[in-house]
């Protein structure tokens, strides 16, 4: 937990600095999709206050999102709101305050809590973006909810898959008496039992910026791996790296591009159009072998025929 708290200490300002020096920010973009629960219960006030959970969530998101790095991409996905025509009130895109603020303010608490379904929608958008960024950058799903999902089985299944794809999941349980079911199977879970805590929790979730490199290994750390079979390490690494960007809950599609042993030209040189001359016709080894076999059969048949005729002639004579 201490490590994570250290990471949390990295401010949004630090994230801004990280991107300021990036040569190709569109490739390194941090991507965060907020899944906001707008079910009916979010319309209720925090216990002991007259501030509804929905209003507090909106306020917290506005405060934090408006301080997020410009280079980061933000998406706001709302489920069960009664008054918005689209779930993506702010599709995953660079921050545009003029559009973002009205988008956050718009939804009003509505009906049920199909969380699993919306986690998939949000994660799929992140995976699509990861494909566009060639795998670079970072990808987080921030869930702000005040109740258990209606589709628990779906939620649990999708959660495992989302985690296995390398998308970090942060959950904020808003004014919940018990922990959310996701509390013990995601990367971070924060309780927010009042508006101030909610702001703090959202801010912490947004501050989760990776700071890991390849230089932080200590000499003693190698001993942790001593008993790990060496031959097991390479496939473990590949399993981590090759999680794929196919939609959540689906199997990866086979890649079409195969350069190996193509039989016809699939590529022409930059400025070359080689004359389309027919390749010289040469008898292949197989063809030559067949010719030998056929010739052998012809000769054998002829010899057999001659011998047979001679024998029959001898018999006649």
């Amino acid at each position: 937990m201490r490590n994570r708290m250290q990471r949390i200490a990295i401010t949004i300002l630090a994230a801004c600095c990280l991107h300021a020096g990036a040569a190709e920010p569109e490739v390194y973009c941090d991507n965060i999709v907020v899944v906001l629960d707008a079910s009916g219960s979010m319309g209720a006030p925090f216990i002991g206050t007259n501030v509804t959970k929905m209003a507090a969530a909106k306020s917290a998101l506005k405060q934090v999102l408006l301080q997020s790095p410009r280079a980061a991409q933000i998406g706001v996905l709302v489920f069960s709101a009664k008054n918005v025509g689209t779930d993506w009130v702010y599709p995953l895109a660079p921050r545009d305050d003029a559009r973002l603020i009205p988008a956050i303010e718009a939804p009003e608490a509505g009906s049920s809590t199909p969380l699993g379904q919306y986690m998939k929608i949000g994660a799929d958008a992140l995976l699509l973006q990861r494909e566009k960024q060639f795998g670079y950058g970072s990808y987080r799903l921030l869930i702000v909810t005040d109740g258990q999902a209606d589709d628990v089985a779906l939620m649990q299944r999708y959660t495992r898959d989302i985690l296995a794809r390398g998308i970090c999941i942060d959950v904020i349980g808003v004014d919940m008496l018990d922990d959310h079911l996701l509390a013990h199977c995601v990367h971070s879970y924060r309780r927010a039992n009042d508006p101030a805590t909610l702001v703090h929790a959202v801010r912490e979730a947004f501050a989760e910026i990776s700071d890991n490199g390849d230089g932080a290994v200590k000499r003693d750390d190698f001993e942790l791996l001593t008993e790990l079979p060496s031959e097991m390490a390479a496939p473990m690494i590949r399993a981590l790296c090759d999680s794929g960007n196919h939609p959540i809950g689906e199997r990866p599609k086979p890649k079409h591009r195969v350069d190996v042993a193509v039989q016809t030209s699939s590529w022409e040189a930059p400025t070359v159009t080689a004359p389309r001359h027919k390749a010289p016709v040469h008898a292949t080894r197989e063809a030559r072998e067949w010719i030998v076999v056929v010739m052998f059969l012809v000769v054998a048949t002829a010899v057999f025929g001659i011998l047979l005729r001679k024998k029959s002639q001898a018999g006649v004579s």
Partner: protein
Amino acid sequence: MCLHFRKTLLLLAVLAHFGARAGEESFQKIVGPVAIGNVSDRGPIQVPFITWGGDMITFHANGGLTTQPGSNYAGQGLNLKLVPGDDFVQQVRDYMSGKSPLLRGTFSMAGLAAEMIGSDPRTQGVVVLQLTWSAGDHMVARAELKSLRDLKGKTIALRQCGPHIGFLDDVLKTAQLGWDDVKVVLAKDLNGSPDSAGEMLRAGKVDAAFVVSPDMIGLCGGLQSTGSGAEGTVKGAHVLVSTATMSHSIADVYVCRKDFYDTHKDWVTKFVAGYMKSCEQVVALKKQFNGKGPAEYMRVLKLAQDIYGKKTMPTLEEDAHGTLAEVILPGYPGNVSFFTEQSNMHGFDAMMSDALNVAISRGYSQSRTYLLKHDLDYASAAFKRYLSNTEIVRQDRFRAEAVLKEIEDLGSGANLDNRTIVSFTITFDPNQTDFSATQYAKEYQRVVQLADKYSGAVIAVRGHSDPTKTLIELVKAGVSRGVLARAGANGNYSYSFQGKPLSLEQTPAIISLIETGAFDGVSEHNPRENMQAALNLSRKRAENVRDSILDYALKSGLHLDKSQIQPVGVGIREPFIAKPTNMDEAKQNMRVEFRLLRVDAEAVAPSDFDL
């Protein structure tokens, strides 16, 4: 009949002069004694041409074998008689005897003749025009040769005294090999006979062969194809390297006699300018070609077909257009750069030095006799007012987004290896951010040289990270989630899985659990986040290295096209040592790898003239 096969027939007589020991004979001995005579400027000047796309421009400039009214050369007041010159030895005889003031060949071929023609001040050679760069010569190799470094100890066939001698020299330099590292077999013929390089490869006598496009297609099916063994192809045969990528290797030139050059400089200027004017016209027409037309372009193709014959050039749309498409035209901008720019690594001085090195090392020359560089005034009205395109503008060779997508899509493994011409690596320390030329000058110089020589290829700068930290996080996450059990203390840990000591047989089950998220969701240990950070970091390192190389080139006064160098982050995906046991082993994983890669045509930004 293919164009180059026809060329072979024309060359057969010449090549008959060369015995098996041709490479060890001096060029002078091959040509034999020739009485030096003066060039007559009465009547048309005899100008040799060869069977090559660049000479189709000469035909257009002249309007035919003799200068036609309305042609560019007629407009220049020239009167030329174009004569076949595929027999290079005969060309040299005609040049020495005064029948023609010009020699037409590749730079390396001219280099072979430099000593002989330079033996008399009258015939000393002045290179006056670069017509083209080749994009239609290839080294085809057997299946077991995957990259250039595999050439060591192998047998390579090439045509005697042909253009491929310089090409092979460049290939060996790329692989950091010498001529003694390979066995060279000199083929008497270009193709169509058992004594040609391609047929030697087909017969299994050699490991690799230098061939021209039609033979390359016959051997392996195409530039990016592998022979299947069917339809005459050789199973497993593939193009190891081509001038389509190594596009600054074979330069075609005209060489002029010094005595003629001195007394007819105006004529030479008009000859060169007329060729450049014709380049501009043909390039503009070629852009409009879309399988057919425009009419004026078809007339250019038809003229070439009439001169070479239908046997050599059966169709206009494929054969004639294809022959022209196999050359890269420098035009005026490229010639100015070739002859005058000190920073041009594929310019006259570099080509001259390379050509003489080969001529001497292979026994064609005994002394280092240079060809001369012309001193035509490119800034004069003869060029500036006559030509339309006299701006020396460098533009990106590649479309950045297309290159990025293509290289990222290639990923790793066989697809990447199949596209790799050559690769090498540098290592660095943990958290290293400075990749200065002071530390890596040798490698950076190699990158700059490769980028210049292989202007049709891209150099991927691939950053790699060490996986130790990610593996540690993975194991710790597994322990936290209860997938793995750990016993013992620091220095004496042991792990178990499903109640049994961790063993290799359990790998599939462990991998399956990693793939289904059983190691994820631990707040303190997130191996995927670590892996992701390493991926980002590795690409940023690759960017730093790319920028350092660009800076090195700039400070060295060398031109380097940024679009040709593509940084890629590999992260922890391809470690040398998957489970390092100490920091020294971990450091071996921290590396930046340079890969020279062939890329799709879509990645190349079209330009009129090559600089």
